[in-house]
Protein backbone atom coordinates (compact mmCIF):
# COMPACT_ATOMS: atom_id res chain seq x y z
CA UNK A 1 0.00 0.00 0.00
CA UNK A 2 1.22 3.38 -0.92
CA UNK A 3 1.13 5.61 2.14
CA UNK A 4 0.67 8.93 0.49
CA UNK A 5 0.37 12.01 2.65
CA UNK A 6 -2.74 13.38 1.00
CA UNK A 7 -5.79 11.15 0.86
CA UNK A 8 -7.32 8.98 2.21
CA UNK A 9 -7.79 5.96 4.31
CA UNK A 10 -11.40 7.03 4.53
CA UNK A 11 -12.02 6.93 0.83
CA UNK A 12 -12.67 3.26 0.41
CA UNK A 13 -14.19 1.48 -2.50
CA UNK A 14 -17.61 0.37 -1.39
CA UNK A 15 -18.42 -1.79 -4.39
CA UNK A 16 -18.86 -5.45 -3.56
CA UNK A 17 -15.92 -7.66 -4.38
CA UNK A 18 -16.40 -9.43 -7.67
CA UNK A 19 -13.99 -12.22 -6.86
CA UNK A 20 -11.66 -11.31 -9.70
CA UNK A 21 -8.02 -11.36 -8.66
CA UNK A 22 -5.63 -8.60 -9.59
CA UNK A 23 -4.10 -9.54 -12.92
CA UNK A 24 -7.07 -11.59 -14.12
CA UNK A 25 -9.23 -10.22 -16.94
CA UNK A 26 -11.80 -7.73 -15.71
CA UNK A 27 -13.08 -6.82 -19.14
CA UNK A 28 -12.92 -9.04 -22.19
CA UNK A 29 -13.67 -7.59 -25.60
CA UNK A 30 -14.29 -10.46 -27.95
CA UNK A 31 -14.44 -10.17 -31.75
CA UNK A 32 -16.26 -6.85 -31.76
CA UNK A 33 -17.34 -5.34 -35.07
CA UNK A 34 -19.19 -2.07 -35.38
CA UNK A 35 -20.25 -0.17 -38.45
CA UNK A 36 -22.27 2.93 -39.19
CA UNK A 37 -24.03 2.39 -42.48
CA UNK A 38 -21.10 1.72 -44.77
CA UNK A 39 -18.40 2.98 -42.43
CA UNK A 40 -16.66 0.23 -40.53
CA UNK A 41 -15.50 1.86 -37.31
CA UNK A 42 -14.33 -1.35 -35.63
CA UNK A 43 -13.54 -4.64 -37.35
CA UNK A 44 -13.18 -7.81 -35.36
CA UNK A 45 -11.26 -6.49 -32.39
CA UNK A 46 -10.44 -8.55 -29.32
CA UNK A 47 -8.47 -7.62 -26.25
CA UNK A 48 -8.78 -7.67 -22.51
CA UNK A 49 -8.22 -5.37 -19.58
CA UNK A 50 -6.80 -6.98 -16.46
CA UNK A 51 -7.81 -6.00 -13.00
CA UNK A 52 -5.52 -3.40 -11.52
CA UNK A 53 -3.71 -2.40 -14.69
CA UNK A 54 -3.57 0.75 -16.77
CA UNK A 55 -4.38 -0.22 -20.31
CA UNK A 56 -3.75 2.29 -23.06
CA UNK A 57 -5.63 2.36 -26.34
CA UNK A 58 -3.73 4.24 -29.02
CA UNK A 59 -3.97 4.81 -32.72
CA UNK A 60 -4.15 7.56 -35.33
CA UNK A 61 -7.19 9.83 -35.65
CA UNK A 62 -10.29 8.00 -36.69
CA UNK A 63 -8.84 4.63 -35.71
CA UNK A 64 -11.93 3.73 -33.72
CA UNK A 65 -10.67 4.32 -30.19
CA UNK A 66 -13.59 6.42 -28.98
CA UNK A 67 -15.99 4.05 -30.69
CA UNK A 68 -14.42 1.21 -28.72
CA UNK A 69 -15.06 3.01 -25.42
CA UNK A 70 -18.60 3.72 -26.57
CA UNK A 71 -19.10 0.02 -27.14
CA UNK A 72 -17.68 -0.82 -23.73
CA UNK A 73 -19.96 1.52 -21.84
CA UNK A 74 -23.04 0.75 -23.86
CA UNK A 75 -23.43 3.81 -26.09
CA UNK A 76 -22.92 1.84 -29.26
CA UNK A 77 -24.22 -1.63 -29.81
CA UNK A 78 -21.81 -3.66 -31.92
CA UNK A 79 -23.18 -5.76 -34.74
CA UNK A 80 -20.92 -8.63 -33.78
CA UNK A 81 -18.97 -9.81 -30.81
CA UNK A 82 -19.42 -9.83 -27.06
CA UNK A 83 -18.27 -7.90 -24.04
CA UNK A 84 -17.65 -9.68 -20.78
CA UNK A 85 -17.33 -7.46 -17.75
CA UNK A 86 -16.64 -8.82 -14.28
CA UNK A 87 -17.40 -12.28 -15.53
CA UNK A 88 -20.79 -11.37 -16.98
CA UNK A 89 -21.31 -11.60 -20.68
CA UNK A 90 -23.67 -9.02 -22.11
CA UNK A 91 -25.23 -8.18 -25.39
CA UNK A 92 -27.10 -4.91 -25.58
CA UNK A 93 -26.77 -2.64 -22.63
CA UNK A 94 -27.71 0.94 -21.81
CA UNK A 95 -24.99 3.28 -20.55
CA UNK A 96 -26.72 3.84 -17.23
CA UNK A 97 -26.79 0.12 -16.62
CA UNK A 98 -23.07 -0.02 -17.36
CA UNK A 99 -22.62 2.75 -14.81
CA UNK A 100 -24.43 0.69 -12.21
CA UNK A 101 -22.13 -2.23 -12.99
CA UNK A 102 -19.13 -0.08 -12.20
CA UNK A 103 -17.97 1.52 -15.44
CA UNK A 104 -17.24 5.26 -15.32
CA UNK A 105 -15.73 7.44 -17.99
CA UNK A 106 -14.64 10.85 -19.14
CA UNK A 107 -15.12 12.24 -22.62
CA UNK A 108 -12.83 13.47 -25.34
CA UNK A 109 -14.85 16.68 -25.41
CA UNK A 110 -15.65 17.65 -21.86
CA UNK A 111 -19.13 16.62 -20.86
CA UNK A 112 -19.71 18.33 -17.55
CA UNK A 113 -23.01 19.70 -16.29
CA UNK A 114 -22.54 23.35 -17.14
CA UNK A 115 -25.27 24.72 -14.91
CA UNK A 116 -23.92 23.09 -11.77
CA UNK A 117 -21.04 23.80 -9.41
CA UNK A 118 -17.88 21.69 -9.18
CA UNK A 119 -19.20 20.14 -6.01
CA UNK A 120 -22.57 19.26 -7.52
CA UNK A 121 -20.92 17.86 -10.63
CA UNK A 122 -18.82 15.51 -8.56
CA UNK A 123 -21.79 14.67 -6.34
CA UNK A 124 -23.67 13.49 -9.43
CA UNK A 125 -20.95 10.87 -9.79
CA UNK A 126 -22.35 9.20 -6.70
CA UNK A 127 -25.87 8.82 -8.00
CA UNK A 128 -25.46 5.08 -8.42
CA UNK A 129 -24.39 4.79 -4.78
CA UNK A 130 -27.24 6.79 -3.25
CA UNK A 131 -30.15 4.63 -2.27
CA UNK A 132 -32.73 6.66 -0.35
CA UNK A 133 -36.11 6.60 -2.01
CA UNK A 134 -38.42 9.44 -2.96
CA UNK A 135 -40.22 9.62 0.37
CA UNK A 136 -37.04 9.85 2.39
CA UNK A 137 -35.73 12.47 0.01
CA UNK A 138 -38.94 14.48 0.31
CA UNK A 139 -38.61 14.39 4.08
CA UNK A 140 -34.88 15.13 3.97
CA UNK A 141 -34.33 15.15 7.74
CA UNK A 142 -33.06 11.80 8.88
CA UNK A 143 -31.82 9.11 6.54
CA UNK A 144 -31.73 11.17 3.34
CA UNK A 145 -29.70 13.93 4.93
CA UNK A 146 -27.39 11.45 6.62
CA UNK A 147 -26.79 9.75 3.32
CA UNK A 148 -26.17 13.05 1.61
CA UNK A 149 -23.60 14.05 4.21
CA UNK A 150 -21.85 10.71 3.97
CA UNK A 151 -21.48 11.13 0.22
CA UNK A 152 -20.47 14.73 0.63
CA UNK A 153 -17.58 13.51 2.78
CA UNK A 154 -16.42 11.08 0.11
CA UNK A 155 -16.68 13.80 -2.51
CA UNK A 156 -14.61 16.14 -0.35
CA UNK A 157 -11.88 13.50 -0.31
CA UNK A 158 -11.88 13.48 -4.06
CA UNK A 159 -11.79 17.27 -4.11
CA UNK A 160 -8.76 17.18 -1.80
CA UNK A 161 -7.15 14.48 -3.87
CA UNK A 162 -7.51 16.46 -7.09
CA UNK A 163 -6.44 19.67 -5.36
CA UNK A 164 -9.50 21.64 -6.37
CA UNK A 165 -10.66 22.75 -2.91
CA UNK A 166 -10.64 26.41 -3.85
CA UNK A 167 -13.12 26.04 -6.69
CA UNK A 168 -15.64 23.66 -5.20
CA UNK A 169 -18.49 26.16 -5.36
CA UNK A 170 -17.61 27.57 -8.77
CA UNK A 171 -19.93 26.85 -11.70
CA UNK A 172 -17.92 24.56 -13.98
CA UNK A 173 -18.58 26.69 -17.04
CA UNK A 174 -16.34 29.39 -15.61
CA UNK A 175 -13.30 27.15 -15.17
CA UNK A 176 -10.39 26.92 -17.58
CA UNK A 177 -10.17 23.86 -19.77
CA UNK A 178 -7.52 22.02 -17.76
CA UNK A 179 -9.49 22.29 -14.54
CA UNK A 180 -12.68 21.17 -16.25
CA UNK A 181 -10.89 18.01 -17.31
CA UNK A 182 -9.87 17.49 -13.73
CA UNK A 183 -13.41 17.97 -12.47
CA UNK A 184 -14.63 15.47 -15.01
CA UNK A 185 -12.11 12.97 -13.68
CA UNK A 186 -13.42 13.74 -10.21
CA UNK A 187 -16.98 13.00 -11.27
CA UNK A 188 -15.91 9.65 -12.72
CA UNK A 189 -13.90 8.82 -9.59
CA UNK A 190 -16.83 9.67 -7.35
CA UNK A 191 -18.64 6.65 -8.72
CA UNK A 192 -15.89 4.45 -7.27
CA UNK A 193 -15.71 2.61 -10.56
CA UNK A 194 -14.36 -0.88 -11.06
CA UNK A 195 -13.26 0.23 -14.52
CA UNK A 196 -12.42 3.80 -15.41
CA UNK A 197 -12.42 4.79 -19.08
CA UNK A 198 -10.53 7.96 -19.95
CA UNK A 199 -10.83 9.39 -23.44
CA UNK A 200 -7.81 11.62 -24.04
CA UNK A 201 -7.61 13.00 -20.50
CA UNK A 202 -4.67 15.20 -21.45
CA UNK A 203 -5.76 16.53 -24.81
CA UNK A 204 -5.23 20.27 -25.11
CA UNK A 205 -3.27 20.60 -21.87
CA UNK A 206 0.05 22.29 -21.29
CA UNK A 207 3.03 20.39 -19.96
CA UNK A 208 2.41 21.17 -16.33
CA UNK A 209 -1.23 20.22 -16.52
CA UNK A 210 -0.26 17.00 -18.24
CA UNK A 211 2.15 16.16 -15.47
CA UNK A 212 -0.52 16.81 -12.84
CA UNK A 213 -3.02 14.67 -14.69
CA UNK A 214 -0.51 11.83 -15.13
CA UNK A 215 0.17 11.92 -11.43
CA UNK A 216 -3.55 11.77 -10.62
CA UNK A 217 -4.08 8.84 -12.95
CA UNK A 218 -1.19 6.92 -11.45
CA UNK A 219 -2.37 7.70 -7.92
CA UNK A 220 -5.88 6.58 -8.71
CA UNK A 221 -4.52 3.33 -10.06
CA UNK A 222 -2.12 2.69 -7.21
CA UNK A 223 -3.98 4.02 -4.19
CA UNK A 224 -7.51 3.02 -5.05
CA UNK A 225 -6.54 0.02 -7.15
CA UNK A 226 -8.82 1.24 -9.92
CA UNK A 227 -8.47 -0.46 -13.28
CA UNK A 228 -8.05 2.12 -16.04
CA UNK A 229 -8.38 2.02 -19.81
CA UNK A 230 -7.19 5.21 -21.39
CA UNK A 231 -6.93 6.69 -24.85
CA UNK A 232 -4.03 9.02 -25.37
CA UNK A 233 -2.10 10.52 -28.25
CA UNK A 234 0.94 11.64 -26.30
CA UNK A 235 3.33 8.70 -26.66
CA UNK A 236 5.52 9.81 -23.78
CA UNK A 237 2.54 9.73 -21.43
CA UNK A 238 1.39 6.39 -22.76
CA UNK A 239 4.79 4.78 -22.34
CA UNK A 240 5.14 6.13 -18.81
CA UNK A 241 1.71 5.31 -17.51
CA UNK A 242 0.50 2.15 -19.07
CA UNK A 243 1.12 -1.47 -18.25
CA UNK A 244 -0.08 -2.67 -21.63
CA UNK A 245 -1.05 -1.01 -24.87
CA UNK A 246 -3.47 -1.95 -27.61
CA UNK A 247 -2.97 -0.25 -30.98
CA UNK A 248 -5.82 0.39 -33.41
CA UNK A 249 -5.65 1.57 -36.99
CA UNK A 250 -8.57 1.92 -39.39
CA UNK A 251 -10.74 -0.02 -36.97
CA UNK A 252 -8.35 -2.98 -36.76
CA UNK A 253 -6.07 -4.08 -33.99
CA UNK A 254 -2.47 -3.93 -35.19
CA UNK A 255 -0.60 -4.30 -31.95
CA UNK A 256 -1.05 -5.44 -28.36
CA UNK A 257 1.51 -5.78 -25.61
CA UNK A 258 3.77 -3.93 -23.22
CA UNK A 259 4.86 -0.43 -24.22
CA UNK A 260 8.23 -1.77 -25.34
CA UNK A 261 6.77 -4.52 -27.45
CA UNK A 262 4.41 -2.11 -29.11
CA UNK A 263 7.11 0.44 -29.76
CA UNK A 264 9.14 -2.10 -31.68
CA UNK A 265 6.23 -3.55 -33.60
CA UNK A 266 6.73 -2.92 -37.33
CA UNK A 267 2.99 -2.60 -38.12
CA UNK A 268 2.64 0.05 -35.46
CA UNK A 269 5.65 1.98 -36.73
CA UNK A 270 4.24 1.88 -40.25
CA UNK A 271 0.82 3.03 -39.13
CA UNK A 272 2.26 6.03 -37.38
CA UNK A 273 4.64 7.03 -40.20
CA UNK A 274 3.24 9.84 -42.24
CA UNK A 275 0.11 10.02 -40.17
CA UNK A 276 -0.40 13.42 -38.69
CA UNK A 277 -1.81 13.54 -35.28
CA UNK A 278 -2.11 16.36 -32.89
CA UNK A 279 1.16 15.86 -31.09
Amino acid at each position, binding site marked *: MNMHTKPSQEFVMTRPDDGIKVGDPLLVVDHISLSFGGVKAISDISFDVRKGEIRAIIGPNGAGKTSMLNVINGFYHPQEGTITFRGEKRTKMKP*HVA*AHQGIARTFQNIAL*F*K*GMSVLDNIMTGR*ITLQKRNLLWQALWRGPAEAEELEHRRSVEHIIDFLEIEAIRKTPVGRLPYGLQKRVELGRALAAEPALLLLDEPMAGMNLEEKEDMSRFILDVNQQFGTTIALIEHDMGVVMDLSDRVVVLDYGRKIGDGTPDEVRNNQDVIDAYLGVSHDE
Partner: protein
Amino acid sequence: MLYREAGDFKTTYRADQQTFPIKSERILFWAFIAFAFLIVPFFINDYWNKAVLMPLLIYSMAALGLNILVGYCGQVSLGTGGFMAVGAFACYKLMTAFPGMDMFSVVILSGFVTAAVGIIFGLPSLRIKGFYLAVATLAAQFFLVWVFNKFAWFYNYSASGQITAPERSIFGIAVTGPSTAPWATYLFALTILFVFGWIARNLTRGRLGRSWMAIRDMDIAAEIIGVSPLKAKLSAFAISSFYIGIAGAMFFANYLGAAEVGEAFGIDKSFLVLFMVIIGGLGSILGSFLGAAFLVLLPVLLKNLMVGYLGWATDLAAHIQIMLVGGLIVFFLIAEPHGLAQLWRITKEKLRIWPFPY
Protein backbone atom coordinates in the same frame (compact mmCIF):
# COMPACT_ATOMS: atom_id res chain seq x y z
CA MET B 1 -28.17 46.60 6.72
CA LEU B 2 -29.99 43.35 6.36
CA TYR B 3 -27.25 41.14 5.12
CA ARG B 4 -23.85 40.29 6.30
CA GLU B 5 -22.41 37.22 4.70
CA ALA B 6 -18.87 38.23 5.54
CA GLY B 7 -16.86 36.07 7.88
CA ASP B 8 -19.46 33.39 7.62
CA PHE B 9 -17.40 30.26 7.08
CA LYS B 10 -18.84 26.83 7.48
CA THR B 11 -17.24 24.26 9.67
CA THR B 12 -19.50 21.33 8.93
CA TYR B 13 -20.90 20.02 5.68
CA ARG B 14 -24.32 20.06 7.24
CA ALA B 15 -24.13 23.77 7.90
CA ASP B 16 -22.79 24.23 4.40
CA GLN B 17 -25.84 22.54 2.90
CA GLN B 18 -28.51 24.49 4.72
CA THR B 19 -31.26 26.18 2.80
CA PHE B 20 -30.41 29.51 4.40
CA PRO B 21 -26.76 29.33 5.31
CA ILE B 22 -26.77 32.89 6.61
CA LYS B 23 -28.28 33.48 9.97
CA SER B 24 -29.93 36.80 9.23
CA GLU B 25 -31.53 35.29 6.17
CA ARG B 26 -32.83 32.38 8.21
CA ILE B 27 -34.36 34.74 10.76
CA LEU B 28 -35.91 36.85 8.04
CA PHE B 29 -37.43 33.77 6.46
CA TRP B 30 -39.01 32.49 9.65
CA ALA B 31 -40.25 35.95 10.56
CA PHE B 32 -41.91 36.12 7.18
CA ILE B 33 -43.49 32.69 7.63
CA ALA B 34 -44.71 33.63 11.11
CA PHE B 35 -46.20 36.80 9.71
CA ALA B 36 -47.97 34.90 6.94
CA PHE B 37 -49.40 32.28 9.30
CA LEU B 38 -50.07 34.25 12.45
CA ILE B 39 -50.67 37.88 11.52
CA VAL B 40 -52.17 37.96 8.04
CA PRO B 41 -55.22 35.79 8.89
CA PHE B 42 -56.36 38.43 11.39
CA PHE B 43 -56.29 41.26 8.90
CA ILE B 44 -57.29 39.52 5.73
CA ASN B 45 -60.35 40.73 3.88
CA ASP B 46 -62.16 39.45 0.84
CA TYR B 47 -60.52 41.84 -1.63
CA TRP B 48 -56.99 41.01 -0.55
CA ASN B 49 -57.75 37.33 -0.46
CA LYS B 50 -59.31 37.16 -3.91
CA ALA B 51 -57.21 39.74 -5.72
CA VAL B 52 -53.81 39.06 -4.26
CA LEU B 53 -53.26 36.31 -1.73
CA MET B 54 -55.06 33.31 -3.18
CA PRO B 55 -53.73 33.83 -6.72
CA LEU B 56 -50.29 34.32 -5.25
CA LEU B 57 -50.38 31.08 -3.29
CA ILE B 58 -51.95 29.02 -6.04
CA TYR B 59 -49.74 30.29 -8.84
CA SER B 60 -46.70 29.78 -6.63
CA MET B 61 -47.70 26.15 -6.36
CA ALA B 62 -48.10 25.87 -10.13
CA ALA B 63 -44.83 27.69 -10.77
CA LEU B 64 -43.01 25.37 -8.37
CA GLY B 65 -44.34 22.41 -10.31
CA LEU B 66 -43.46 23.81 -13.70
CA ASN B 67 -40.02 24.86 -12.49
CA ILE B 68 -39.27 21.29 -11.47
CA LEU B 69 -40.00 20.19 -15.01
CA VAL B 70 -38.60 23.07 -17.04
CA GLY B 71 -36.06 24.65 -14.74
CA TYR B 72 -34.61 21.58 -13.09
CA CYS B 73 -35.14 18.82 -15.62
CA GLY B 74 -34.98 20.94 -18.77
CA GLN B 75 -38.17 19.56 -20.32
CA VAL B 76 -40.19 22.37 -21.85
CA SER B 77 -43.92 22.21 -21.24
CA LEU B 78 -46.79 24.28 -22.54
CA GLY B 79 -49.36 21.97 -21.00
CA THR B 80 -49.67 23.60 -17.58
CA GLY B 81 -53.23 24.81 -18.15
CA GLY B 82 -54.27 21.33 -19.22
CA PHE B 83 -52.69 19.74 -16.16
CA MET B 84 -54.32 22.29 -13.90
CA ALA B 85 -57.60 21.28 -15.53
CA VAL B 86 -56.89 17.65 -14.72
CA GLY B 87 -56.38 18.62 -11.09
CA ALA B 88 -59.55 20.68 -11.07
CA PHE B 89 -61.73 17.99 -12.60
CA ALA B 90 -60.21 15.26 -10.45
CA CYS B 91 -61.01 17.47 -7.48
CA TYR B 92 -64.58 18.02 -8.66
CA LYS B 93 -65.19 14.33 -9.27
CA LEU B 94 -63.74 13.42 -5.88
CA MET B 95 -65.77 16.09 -4.08
CA THR B 96 -68.99 14.94 -5.65
CA ALA B 97 -68.31 11.20 -5.46
CA PHE B 98 -67.08 11.22 -1.85
CA PRO B 99 -68.91 14.02 -0.05
CA GLY B 100 -67.47 12.95 3.28
CA MET B 101 -63.87 13.31 2.26
CA ASP B 102 -61.94 16.17 3.82
CA MET B 103 -60.64 18.83 1.50
CA PHE B 104 -56.98 18.16 2.19
CA SER B 105 -57.29 14.57 1.03
CA VAL B 106 -59.28 15.68 -2.01
CA VAL B 107 -56.57 18.08 -3.08
CA ILE B 108 -53.72 15.62 -2.54
CA LEU B 109 -55.55 12.86 -4.42
CA SER B 110 -56.19 15.29 -7.27
CA GLY B 111 -52.45 15.81 -7.34
CA PHE B 112 -51.88 12.09 -7.68
CA VAL B 113 -54.40 11.79 -10.50
CA THR B 114 -52.65 14.62 -12.32
CA ALA B 115 -49.27 12.98 -11.73
CA ALA B 116 -50.51 9.85 -13.47
CA VAL B 117 -51.78 11.88 -16.42
CA GLY B 118 -48.50 13.78 -16.43
CA ILE B 119 -46.53 10.56 -16.80
CA ILE B 120 -48.57 9.60 -19.84
CA PHE B 121 -48.06 12.96 -21.51
CA GLY B 122 -44.42 12.87 -20.48
CA LEU B 123 -43.73 9.75 -22.50
CA PRO B 124 -42.91 11.67 -25.71
CA SER B 125 -40.05 13.35 -23.81
CA LEU B 126 -38.18 10.06 -24.00
CA ARG B 127 -37.99 10.53 -27.75
CA ILE B 128 -38.12 14.24 -28.45
CA LYS B 129 -36.61 17.38 -26.98
CA GLY B 130 -36.88 21.13 -27.02
CA PHE B 131 -39.15 22.65 -29.57
CA TYR B 132 -40.77 19.34 -30.56
CA LEU B 133 -41.50 18.51 -26.96
CA ALA B 134 -43.02 21.96 -26.47
CA VAL B 135 -45.34 21.28 -29.39
CA ALA B 136 -46.26 17.87 -27.99
CA THR B 137 -47.17 19.38 -24.63
CA LEU B 138 -49.11 22.09 -26.42
CA ALA B 139 -51.09 19.32 -28.06
CA ALA B 140 -51.69 17.86 -24.60
CA GLN B 141 -53.04 21.21 -23.48
CA PHE B 142 -55.62 21.36 -26.27
CA PHE B 143 -56.43 17.69 -26.01
CA LEU B 144 -57.13 17.86 -22.28
CA VAL B 145 -59.35 20.93 -22.57
CA TRP B 146 -61.21 19.25 -25.40
CA VAL B 147 -61.74 16.08 -23.36
CA PHE B 148 -63.16 17.98 -20.41
CA ASN B 149 -65.51 19.83 -22.71
CA LYS B 150 -66.53 16.86 -24.76
CA PHE B 151 -67.34 14.22 -22.16
CA ALA B 152 -70.16 15.36 -19.93
CA TRP B 153 -69.26 12.74 -17.32
CA PHE B 154 -66.43 14.98 -16.19
CA TYR B 155 -68.78 17.82 -15.27
CA ASN B 156 -71.49 15.50 -13.99
CA TYR B 157 -73.75 16.33 -16.98
CA SER B 158 -74.42 19.83 -15.69
CA ALA B 159 -76.39 21.90 -18.19
CA SER B 160 -73.92 24.77 -18.26
CA GLY B 161 -70.88 22.54 -18.71
CA GLN B 162 -69.44 24.20 -15.64
CA ILE B 163 -68.12 22.55 -12.53
CA THR B 164 -69.15 24.07 -9.23
CA ALA B 165 -67.46 23.35 -5.93
CA PRO B 166 -69.82 22.21 -3.18
CA GLU B 167 -69.01 23.09 0.38
CA ARG B 168 -66.22 20.96 1.83
CA SER B 169 -64.27 21.43 4.96
CA ILE B 170 -61.26 20.45 6.96
CA PHE B 171 -61.39 20.16 10.76
CA GLY B 172 -65.00 21.27 10.44
CA ILE B 173 -64.05 24.58 8.83
CA ALA B 174 -65.42 25.19 5.36
CA VAL B 175 -62.72 25.92 2.79
CA THR B 176 -64.81 25.60 -0.37
CA GLY B 177 -68.27 26.71 -1.35
CA PRO B 178 -70.00 30.08 -1.12
CA SER B 179 -69.83 30.58 2.63
CA THR B 180 -66.12 30.32 3.32
CA ALA B 181 -64.22 32.86 5.34
CA PRO B 182 -61.24 34.46 3.60
CA TRP B 183 -58.87 33.45 6.39
CA ALA B 184 -59.91 29.80 6.07
CA THR B 185 -59.17 29.45 2.36
CA TYR B 186 -56.04 31.50 2.80
CA LEU B 187 -54.66 29.34 5.58
CA PHE B 188 -55.60 26.18 3.73
CA ALA B 189 -53.69 27.22 0.60
CA LEU B 190 -50.81 28.64 2.60
CA THR B 191 -50.34 25.42 4.54
CA ILE B 192 -50.32 23.32 1.41
CA LEU B 193 -47.89 25.65 -0.30
CA PHE B 194 -45.61 25.72 2.72
CA VAL B 195 -45.47 21.94 3.02
CA PHE B 196 -44.95 21.33 -0.68
CA GLY B 197 -42.54 24.20 -1.08
CA TRP B 198 -40.43 22.58 1.59
CA ILE B 199 -40.72 19.20 -0.13
CA ALA B 200 -39.74 20.72 -3.47
CA ARG B 201 -36.67 22.19 -1.87
CA ASN B 202 -35.75 18.78 -0.43
CA LEU B 203 -36.31 16.93 -3.66
CA THR B 204 -34.24 19.35 -5.68
CA ARG B 205 -31.22 19.41 -3.39
CA GLY B 206 -30.66 15.67 -3.22
CA ARG B 207 -30.04 12.82 -5.57
CA LEU B 208 -33.26 13.22 -7.51
CA GLY B 209 -32.67 16.92 -8.10
CA ARG B 210 -29.15 16.30 -9.29
CA SER B 211 -30.27 13.62 -11.68
CA TRP B 212 -32.85 16.05 -13.12
CA MET B 213 -30.24 18.76 -13.53
CA ALA B 214 -27.84 16.27 -15.07
CA ILE B 215 -30.44 15.39 -17.68
CA ARG B 216 -31.08 19.08 -18.25
CA ASP B 217 -27.42 20.04 -18.68
CA MET B 218 -26.21 17.09 -20.72
CA ASP B 219 -28.33 14.00 -21.10
CA ILE B 220 -25.54 11.85 -22.52
CA ALA B 221 -23.23 12.51 -19.61
CA ALA B 222 -26.14 11.97 -17.24
CA GLU B 223 -26.61 8.51 -18.63
CA ILE B 224 -22.99 7.50 -18.22
CA ILE B 225 -23.00 8.44 -14.55
CA GLY B 226 -25.96 6.16 -14.05
CA VAL B 227 -29.05 8.34 -14.47
CA SER B 228 -31.83 6.50 -16.22
CA PRO B 229 -33.37 9.08 -18.58
CA LEU B 230 -36.67 7.27 -18.38
CA LYS B 231 -36.84 7.48 -14.61
CA ALA B 232 -35.50 11.02 -14.39
CA LYS B 233 -37.80 12.49 -17.03
CA LEU B 234 -40.93 10.65 -15.99
CA SER B 235 -40.38 11.41 -12.32
CA ALA B 236 -40.02 15.08 -13.23
CA PHE B 237 -43.24 14.94 -15.23
CA ALA B 238 -45.01 13.12 -12.42
CA ILE B 239 -43.91 15.38 -9.60
CA SER B 240 -44.34 18.52 -11.66
CA SER B 241 -47.86 17.47 -12.61
CA PHE B 242 -48.61 16.59 -9.01
CA TYR B 243 -47.88 20.17 -7.98
CA ILE B 244 -49.71 21.65 -10.95
CA GLY B 245 -52.68 19.37 -10.31
CA ILE B 246 -52.90 20.57 -6.73
CA ALA B 247 -52.70 24.14 -7.97
CA GLY B 248 -55.51 23.43 -10.44
CA ALA B 249 -57.66 21.82 -7.75
CA MET B 250 -57.24 24.78 -5.43
CA PHE B 251 -57.73 27.26 -8.25
CA PHE B 252 -61.08 25.73 -9.00
CA ALA B 253 -62.32 24.70 -5.57
CA ASN B 254 -60.87 27.26 -3.18
CA TYR B 255 -60.46 30.25 -5.45
CA LEU B 256 -62.95 30.34 -8.33
CA GLY B 257 -65.67 28.17 -6.82
CA ALA B 258 -66.97 27.43 -10.29
CA ALA B 259 -65.12 26.96 -13.52
CA GLU B 260 -65.55 26.38 -17.22
CA VAL B 261 -62.57 24.51 -18.54
CA GLY B 262 -61.67 26.50 -21.64
CA GLU B 263 -61.96 29.75 -19.77
CA ALA B 264 -60.21 28.83 -16.56
CA PHE B 265 -57.54 26.49 -17.85
CA GLY B 266 -56.80 27.65 -21.38
CA ILE B 267 -53.49 28.06 -23.10
CA ASP B 268 -53.06 31.49 -21.51
CA LYS B 269 -52.61 29.73 -18.16
CA SER B 270 -49.81 27.64 -19.62
CA PHE B 271 -48.01 30.75 -20.81
CA LEU B 272 -48.66 32.71 -17.64
CA VAL B 273 -47.08 30.06 -15.43
CA LEU B 274 -44.20 29.60 -17.86
CA PHE B 275 -43.56 33.35 -17.76
CA MET B 276 -43.57 33.23 -13.97
CA VAL B 277 -40.91 30.56 -14.04
CA ILE B 278 -38.79 32.43 -16.58
CA ILE B 279 -39.04 35.78 -14.83
CA GLY B 280 -38.59 34.27 -11.38
CA GLY B 281 -35.66 32.08 -12.32
CA LEU B 282 -35.37 28.71 -14.01
CA GLY B 283 -34.11 26.06 -11.64
CA SER B 284 -34.78 28.01 -8.47
CA ILE B 285 -37.34 27.35 -5.76
CA LEU B 286 -37.18 30.93 -4.60
CA GLY B 287 -37.56 32.02 -8.22
CA SER B 288 -40.87 30.19 -8.49
CA PHE B 289 -42.26 32.30 -5.67
CA LEU B 290 -40.75 35.51 -6.92
CA GLY B 291 -42.04 34.96 -10.44
CA ALA B 292 -45.54 34.16 -9.23
CA ALA B 293 -45.54 37.15 -6.92
CA PHE B 294 -44.32 39.41 -9.67
CA LEU B 295 -46.91 38.44 -12.24
CA VAL B 296 -49.75 38.38 -9.73
CA LEU B 297 -48.88 41.70 -8.14
CA LEU B 298 -47.85 43.61 -11.24
CA PRO B 299 -51.35 43.75 -12.80
CA VAL B 300 -52.92 44.68 -9.47
CA LEU B 301 -50.39 47.43 -8.99
CA LEU B 302 -50.62 48.71 -12.53
CA LYS B 303 -54.37 48.69 -12.41
CA ASN B 304 -54.45 50.66 -9.20
CA LEU B 305 -51.88 53.04 -10.57
CA MET B 306 -53.15 53.60 -14.09
CA VAL B 307 -56.89 53.23 -13.63
CA GLY B 308 -57.33 54.17 -10.01
CA TYR B 309 -54.74 56.90 -9.71
CA LEU B 310 -54.13 58.28 -13.19
CA GLY B 311 -57.68 57.64 -14.33
CA TRP B 312 -56.80 55.91 -17.61
CA ALA B 313 -59.20 53.65 -19.45
CA THR B 314 -59.21 50.04 -18.33
CA ASP B 315 -58.44 48.57 -21.74
CA LEU B 316 -55.54 50.96 -22.29
CA ALA B 317 -54.12 49.92 -18.94
CA ALA B 318 -54.55 46.27 -19.87
CA HIS B 319 -52.66 46.76 -23.13
CA ILE B 320 -49.83 48.56 -21.46
CA GLN B 321 -49.62 45.76 -18.95
CA ILE B 322 -49.35 43.13 -21.68
CA MET B 323 -46.61 45.10 -23.39
CA LEU B 324 -44.73 45.51 -20.16
CA VAL B 325 -44.85 41.83 -19.33
CA GLY B 326 -43.77 40.96 -22.87
CA GLY B 327 -40.85 43.35 -22.62
CA LEU B 328 -39.82 41.87 -19.30
CA ILE B 329 -39.89 38.34 -20.69
CA VAL B 330 -37.60 39.38 -23.52
CA PHE B 331 -35.35 41.17 -21.07
CA PHE B 332 -35.05 38.20 -18.76
CA LEU B 333 -34.54 35.69 -21.53
CA ILE B 334 -31.71 37.76 -22.98
CA ALA B 335 -30.15 39.53 -20.05
CA GLU B 336 -30.79 37.37 -17.02
CA PRO B 337 -31.89 33.82 -17.75
CA HIS B 338 -31.70 33.02 -14.07
CA GLY B 339 -34.37 35.56 -13.35
CA LEU B 340 -35.30 37.50 -10.27
CA ALA B 341 -33.73 34.89 -8.02
CA GLN B 342 -30.35 35.64 -9.57
CA LEU B 343 -30.87 39.38 -9.26
CA TRP B 344 -31.61 38.81 -5.61
CA ARG B 345 -28.42 36.76 -5.22
CA ILE B 346 -26.35 39.45 -6.91
CA THR B 347 -27.86 42.11 -4.69
CA LYS B 348 -26.91 40.05 -1.68
CA GLU B 349 -23.35 39.69 -2.89
CA LYS B 350 -23.17 43.42 -3.47
CA LEU B 351 -24.48 44.05 0.02
CA ARG B 352 -21.95 41.67 1.48
CA ILE B 353 -19.01 43.70 0.31
CA TRP B 354 -20.84 46.98 0.78
CA PRO B 355 -19.68 49.67 1.36
CA PHE B 356 -16.18 48.75 0.23
CA PRO B 357 -16.39 46.98 -3.09
CA TYR B 358 -12.66 46.24 -3.27
